[in-house]
């Protein structure tokens, strides 16, 4: 296994490199809730744990896919306060969930190093917003490191553990999609696989007001020391390419700047910031004194720009500082070589221009897979729900129900917001409301909302789409599964029992591949006056395909097909396509779920022999 080899070079994904860094640093405790673009950090650690378990080696660290990010952070915080090294990884919006614990954890601090990884997603490649989590370092007042490539991601993870131990506070490691999902050559050094036991020494850790007031100034002091550390840290360094102008940059943007300097032959001084909070004030002031003007290249918010302007002011340095609003630099979306090349060419007065070719290619958005059980559920719901039904939805593959022809997604904020908002829509409008939520999301944040709904007698239907996995982020296990992230036996929580246990009177479990049964179940749920729950239970088709030995496919009997187009226009399984005036099934796409047999009004679809 690649992640367990030593003394060689390997190509690692940025996220794999973070996991590797944790292993080289002797991580004892790793927790997460999966989310793109951070999932592979914990998936790698899970893979290592399962592999060692399988071949009978005692796994030197504890790993878990926690129910949500807040629980993940709390689990790891208690390990770190007991002197163990811990890593907790999550996507940027996961930090919002963890933030209640996070903000006070900064006061309490830790003994063993604790690295909290936030995977930010400028341009919302797979997220509901593009919030800039560098703000969290400022908000909680904690140190932050930002790698630009996999090699740095590994080294900074190791460094973050050390900084955390020296200061006795958790350290944030921030990636963005382009760093997390970049592969590069990484040197695999010595692993540290010693198993350690934590020791909890009781102290001032109960944040009642009196103690919290005592702890806050302690944090401020620690961060003053952090500032001194940032001045000397090897990840804050200056490269001199000549000239009298300066560039200050960090993270993914550094990569574009570095190539622009090479490709456009730019003469500049370049300050690369890796230890990005707190900023090294003296080093930056010295840099500013040595240039005529400077441009800050950072994605999203003008965080460094504003802080550097303050540094310039406090040090009486009167030079122009450029950043957001100059050239193509803005506060939205990720940067790319085009944006950076053209803006830097403006700044340095260099000729640059690429004539863009106009292209009209049809969009190819991600869609529900052929054979996906969610499509079957949506098909049944659309058959029975009134046209003005409101559909709050949630975070998962099923969010793709927003696309035509289904349009079974009307409102989405965050994990669990389907169940939370459904009662509001029902009270506010009096319309029928069907909310969709996945199994993993239900455990994550749906449960408190459902308890609220049953307690207040809300009137809506919650459809729990239970495909037995956290599908969208790569099939991680969740509390409904009987095997955990280390490959150990786990207690599988039964969703129907929970729902009944909190007092929901109308609960049905259906197999979504049975169209008639699913339609009837939703009809009854809609007629029920009060809160109803329908659990559509069938495994993710991709998992099911892995288990299945023989591939089954279906075909259309062209003699019976009347070209009514129901299969294409209403059902919209991607395996169906038009070939001239015929409708056919693409054999390599068909997963053999057979649901379309129930959809075809002419009974023209049959199993291929």
């Amino acid at each position, binding site marked *: 296994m690649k992640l367990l080899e030593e003394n060689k*070079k*390997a*190509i690692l994904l940025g996220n794999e490199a973070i996991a590797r860094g944790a292993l080289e640093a002797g991580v004892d405790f790793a927790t997460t809730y999966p989310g*793109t*673009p951070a*999932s592979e950090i914990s998936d790698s650690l899970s893979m290592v744990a399962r592999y060692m378990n399988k071949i009978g080696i005692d796994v030197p660290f504890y790993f878990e896919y926690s129910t949500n990010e807040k629980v993940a952070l709390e689990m790891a915080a208690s390990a770190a306060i007991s002197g163990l090294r811990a890593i907790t990884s999550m996507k940027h919006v996961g930090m919002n969930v963890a933030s209640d614990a996070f903000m006070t954890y900064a006061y309490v601090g830790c003994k063993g190093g604790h690295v909290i990884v936030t995977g930010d997603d400028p341009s919302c*490649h*797979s997220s509901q917003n593009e919030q800039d989590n560098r703000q969290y370092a400022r908000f909680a007042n904690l140190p932050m490191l930002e790698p630009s*490539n996999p090699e740095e991601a590994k080294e900074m993870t190791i460094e973050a553990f050390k900084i955390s131990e020296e200061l006795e506070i958790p350290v944030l490691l921030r990636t963005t*999609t*382009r760093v997390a*999902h*970049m*592969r*590069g*050559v990484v040197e695999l050094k010595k692993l540290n696989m010693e198993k350690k036991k934590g020791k909890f020494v009781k102290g001032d850790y109960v944040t009642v007001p009196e103690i919290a007031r005592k702890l806050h100034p302690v944090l401020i002091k620690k961060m003053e020391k952090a500032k001194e550390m940032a001045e000397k840290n090897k990840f804050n360094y200056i490269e001199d390419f000549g000239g009298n102008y300066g560039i200050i940059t960090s993270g993914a943007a*550094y*990569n*574009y700047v*570095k*190539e622009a300097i*090479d*490709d456009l032959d730019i003469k500049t001084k370049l300050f690369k910031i890796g230890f990005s909070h707190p900023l090294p004030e003296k080093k930056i002031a010295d840099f500013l004194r040595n240039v005529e003007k400077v441009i800050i290249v950072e994605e999203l918010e003008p965080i460094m720009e504003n802080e550097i302007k303050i540094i310039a002011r406090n040090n009486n340095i009167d030079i122009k500082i450029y950043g957001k609003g100059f050239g193509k630099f803005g506060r939205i979306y990720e940067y*790319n*070589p*085009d944006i950076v*090349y053209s803006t830097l060419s403006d700044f340095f007065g260099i000729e640059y221009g*690429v004539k*863009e*070719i106009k*292209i*009209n*290619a*049809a*969009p*190819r*958005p*991600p*869609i*529900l*897979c*052929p054979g996906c059980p969610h499509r079957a559920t949506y098909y049944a719901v659309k058959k029975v729900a009134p046209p003005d039904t409101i559909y709050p939805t949630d975070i998962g*593959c099923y969010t*793709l129900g927003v*696309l*035509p*022809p289904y349009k079974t997604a009307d409102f989405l904020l965050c994990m669990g917001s389907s169940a939370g908002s459904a009662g509001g829509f029902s009270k506010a409008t009096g319309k029928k409301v069907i909310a969709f939520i996945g199994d993993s999301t239900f455990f994550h944040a749906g449960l408190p909302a459902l308890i609220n709904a049953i307690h207040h007698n809300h009137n809506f239907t919650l459809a729990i789409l239970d495909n037995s996995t956290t*599908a*969208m*982020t790569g099939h991680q296990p969740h509390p409904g599964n009987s095997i955990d992230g280390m490959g150990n036996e786990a207690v599988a929580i039964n969703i129907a029992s929970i729902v009944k246990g909190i007092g929901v009177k109308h609960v049905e479990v259906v197999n979504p591949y049975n169209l008639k049964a699913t339609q009837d179940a939703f009809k009854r749920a809609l007629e029920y006056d009060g809160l109803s729950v329908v659990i559509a239970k069938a495994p993710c088709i*991709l998992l099911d395909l892995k288990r299945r030995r023989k591939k089954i496919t279906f075909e259309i009997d062209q003699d019976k097909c009347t070209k009514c187009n129901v299969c*294409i*226009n209403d059902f*919209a*399984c*991607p395996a*169906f*396509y*038009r070939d001239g005036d015929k409708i056919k099934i693409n054999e*390599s796409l068909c997963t053999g779920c057979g649901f379309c047999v129930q959809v075809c009004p002419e009974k023209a679809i049959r199993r291929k022999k």
Partner: protein
Amino acid sequence: MKKSILLAGVGGQGVITAANIIANAALIEGHKVITSELHGMAQRGGDVKCAVRIGNVYSPIIPPQTADAIISLEPMEALRNLNVVSKKGVVITDINPIYPPLTSIGIGEYPSLNDIFEKIEKHCRLVKINADEVAKKAGSILTKNIVMIGSFYALDIFPLERKSIIQSISQNIKKEYVDMNIKAFEIGEKEIK
């Protein structure tokens, strides 16, 4: 030295595997290599692209119109990414369209193959491969990504040794399918020679 290629296709075609094979071959030869990929959201059906860059490179995104080649497993995906390839570069693409399901309900229109090829040829060199057919000859349509690597290798525009690519295939493909994929590579090569 800087060399960049972009691999493109549709989710499920093995674009990322193909990129990893080429990147790993570059590592075998001691090059600095980086690749980029995007994943998340649904696993299949969306457009996929993956850059492989070697030499003095930092950016995982290829600067506009600087790539030496696009290797596309689907013709419209070659067109979609045309802005990445240099005028002196080459587009090598499979010729079998995969129509986005949304086009059948009137959202977006798949351009005609002629238009696609004309547009590409106006910008740079175009090499067309019926990779579906070749892959079937090798034993499975699933070897299509390796067929394309074979044809690309035969064009001799990327500084990699044949034996490194073969070695990389055996390291990146499940044992039982290695022979079939090496065969796919070889037949792919012959399509060009």
